[in-house]
């Protein structure tokens, strides 16, 4: 038995599901951000695995390039997200998303 693409895809699927579960079920906004990062990294694994296994001989590194772009965009997203969380914390001394319920209806 050797390591094939399916192993990487299963790993990616498990990580993505963990991230999605955490992002939807956790209450701490910072933890939710971390879970989103897990989801994005799961996608990175899938991208690189596809690129490596389906096009092993080409010099075209589409999947790898895509992964690099996802990493940079994720950093920018995390920066803006943390900044928003800091403003929320200053307003109400808590980063619990269940308490962010000023608007209903």
């Amino acid at each position, binding site marked *: 038995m050797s390591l094939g693409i399916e192993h990487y895809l299963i790993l990616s699927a498990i990580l*993505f599901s963990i*991230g*999605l579960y955490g*992002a*939807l079920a956790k209450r701490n*906004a910072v933890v*939710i*951000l971390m879970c*989103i990062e897990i*989801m*994005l990294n*799961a*996608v990175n694994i*899938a*991208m690189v695995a*596809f*690129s490596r296994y*389906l*096009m092993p001989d080409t010099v075209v590194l*589409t*999947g790898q*390039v*895509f992964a690099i*772009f*996802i990493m940079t*965009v994720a950093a*920018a*997203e995390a920066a*803006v*997200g943390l*900044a*928003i*969380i800091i*403003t*929320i914390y200053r*307003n*109400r001394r808590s980063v619990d*998303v269940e308490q*962010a319920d*000023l*608007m209903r*209806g």
Partner: protein
Amino acid sequence: MNFWLLSPELSLVGIALTVILLDLFIQQKKVLAAISVFGLIIPIAFTIALWGENQASFSGMLVVDNFSLFFKFLILGITSLVILSSMDYARKFARFQGEYYALILLSAGGLMLMGSTGELISIYIALELASISLYALVSFLKDPKSSEAGLKYMILGAISSAVLLLGMAFVFGITGTTHLDQIADKVGALVSGGQLWDSPALLFGIVLLIAGFGFKIASVPFQMWVPDVYEGAPTPITAFLSVASKAAGIAVILRVFYTAFGIAEISADWAMIFAVLGAISMTIGNVVAIAQSNIKRMLGYSSIAHAGFLMVGLAAIGTLGQSGVLFFLAGYALANLGAFIAIIAISNKIGSDEIADYSGMARRSPVISFALAFSLISLIGIPPAVGFMAKFFIFNAAIQQDLLWLVLIAALNSVISAYYYLRVVKVMYVNEPTSEEPIPSSIPLRISLAIASIGVLVLGVYPWLVLRLAENAVAMFP
């Protein structure tokens, strides 16, 4: 590498950077708004000069054709109206006007690129450039509602882009390329080989793509962020979000699905998904909107309903549906902007977005009230406003494609929507005013309100002006 093709976006980003830098060194912040508005003339001029161009550059990452130029023009127009109408509102954050205008311009740059890429990586980058600027803009006010709206938008937006990326990963994994035209070739080969559904991964990827883009255009079941974000965000940003972001989302959907998955064996499947989601979107949006007391929230649900109407056009495969969607977007943009600009003027004075506080507004400020009423009538779809023509073209396209059931649902929904739009008109015209003070408005705001209202009327009477352009724009689709 042809920088001439990229000139609208390059000049727009250049203006945004200039505004950020000037903001650091000048005290008179009003200059920044003027630079932003007059600066927008440059990218608009480039866009007009490029009209008729049809080529790809940057190894297929940038596609300039009439379709992308139509959306560039639409988004630049929306951006200039939004900036014009923000000048009064910007007093609330006088010190941070530079960032505000620069972020709007950057976001517009991202939205423009979304419509003109033929490749998945650049679609993602453009989408995130637009979204991240919008996250910051939504949480721009100092009050807790705005930060809360920003947090919700950011978290849900990030989750949806992760889902979109997983979809892109699967499409890339099955087809081995991120270029839309090469994906189309590969899918065509799979179809002719009879092995299209050997692996469900492609179908899975397509469904995830619909989910990711559905978030952008606020369709069910990815609509839960809409009312909260619309209520909490600064009103000009709500306007921008409701029209520009939706327009760019539709542009991406049209290009990705018609270019990459346009082959008849698949298009019937995704068209059915859009039809069902569209029917649910309009019904939920319109029914829940009835119960709203805050006008921004009500327009939020109305925006979900309009996403449903747009999806009727997406479900009606063919040139009629495509050009109908483009025309609908232009009409919806004008009508919704008109409504929001009137709301900005009124809320600047009375400091409230509750519909009950609008009572007797017609006597306090007849012009603004009339503009708001006319925009709402257009949103219902009553002639002579543009909303009627827009719905007419889309419904016609759907009937040609044997989607009578969908058109019946949509027509029924238009009737339901009349109730809550007309309720606002009734409050303004029939109820007694609480005070006699008129609503003040600045010259730029009046100009933008006039452009939006006249646009609604002119396009309602002479729809061919824009419909020609829309037909020209979609001619490139196979």
